């Protein structure tokens, strides 16, 4: 039997089960905390760092998607400092790859593009890195354009945790890190891929998309995720 904890978010009284995270309770109460790597139904990895929040009395910022709620904690989700950090993190993402919104299949339906607007990030202070990245169009139905990948690893997680295929993983480290299919083989040659397309549907940007889609045509369908996770008896993110 899980106990109930009461605490505060932005001075508002809220409550939740002890095994729930700050992010879950914030969402329940319509309090916005930005995220890019988090997705309900998948495990949380805390890697995008957008959901960092302040907790009164804590020296470090808390990762809302993985920090369990505590009795009496006072959480603040929207300070000027947090806004600045979040804007910079989104800047870093834009500077890392080659995000040319104007010619992207996900233009207008992209979570990264949305996030820049939500956070008021209208230009980059950091210089663009403009790396030379690969596009893998070997799969019969899908394309992997690494220029648009933000390494949120949703594809890795959905493939492993929901589809059970574990076609995707991460290779390399630091700025060289990249998602790969099988042992860095062409997607089309993958023995493990079931062509279910879940990775494409959870991808927040235009990095994974369906063949035949042109600029701004790729809309992602995610209805399967809550359905499948409820079937699995795990409606909440771990």
């Amino acid at each position, binding site marked *: 039997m899980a106990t109930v904890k009461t605490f505060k978010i932005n001075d508002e009284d809220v409550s939740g089960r002890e095994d729930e995270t700050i992010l879950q309770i914030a969402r329940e109460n319509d309090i916005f905390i930005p995220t890019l790597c988090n997705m309900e139904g998948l495990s949380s990895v805390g890697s995008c760092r957008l959901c960092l929040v302040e907790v009164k009395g804590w020296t470090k910022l808390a990762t809302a998607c993985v920090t369990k709620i505590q009795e009496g904690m006072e959480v603040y989700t929207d300070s000027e400092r947090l806004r600045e950090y979040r804007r910079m993190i989104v800047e870093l993402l*834009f500077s890392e790859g*080659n995000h*040319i*919104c*104007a010619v992207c299949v996900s233009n207008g339906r*992209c979570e990264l593009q949305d996030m*820049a*607007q939500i956070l008021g990030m*209208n230009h980059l202070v950091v210089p*663009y890195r403009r790396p030379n990245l690969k596009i893998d169009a070997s799969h019969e139905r899908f394309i992997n354009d690494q220029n648009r990948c933000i390494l949120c690893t949703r594809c890795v997680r959905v493939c492993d945790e929901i589809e059970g295929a574990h076609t995707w993983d991460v290779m390399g480290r630091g700025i060289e890190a990249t998602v790969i299919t099988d042992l860095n083989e062409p997607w089309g040659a993958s023995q493990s891929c079931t062509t279910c397309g879940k990775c494409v549907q959870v991808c927040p940007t235009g990095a994974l998309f369906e063949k035949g889609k042109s600029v701004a045509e790729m809309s992602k369908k995610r209805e399967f995720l809550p359905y499948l996770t409820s079937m699995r008896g795990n409606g909440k993110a771990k």
Partner: protein
Amino acid sequence: MIETPTKIKFATVWLDGCSGCHMSFLDIDERLLDLGDKIDLVYSPLVDYKDFPDMVDVTLIEGAVSNEDDLHKIKKVREHTKLLISLGDCAVTGNVPSMRVPFGIEAVMNRAYTENVTRNHQMPTNGVPPLLPRVRPVHEIVKVDVFIPGCPPPADTIFFVLTELLEGRQPDISKLTRFGK
């Protein structure tokens, strides 16, 4: 246009871009006439002045900094402008012009002047300014005062920004436009 001392001096500059932002500016349509009461267009691809004037109050920049000509031009424009506005994704982010960067200049020149040319292909030797290895957004070269992202930014947004600035207010456009569409 009749010059009066109360009108502000206004310019638009076209660097490496598709001119879509200028089209969007023209899409302000009949409201251009209202603007015309307040501004004096002293330099633009839309008018015939050859040299950038000594001092301009507001300059809209479309396009990224791609070649040595752009570089020279933008530095001069900045020197002679009070308020510089990056208009559209090419000026703000580098956008489509920047897509050539990862491939290198040689590959791009070959694609344009050799591979895709069926007859008498040759590299241009004069009249075409040399490309810079990296395509830069304007603010990586000179200080920019206002950013209007969008490909292109909607005409309403451009009109809003200009009228707000003319009224002496700092426009908040975060809800009105963004990267891409």
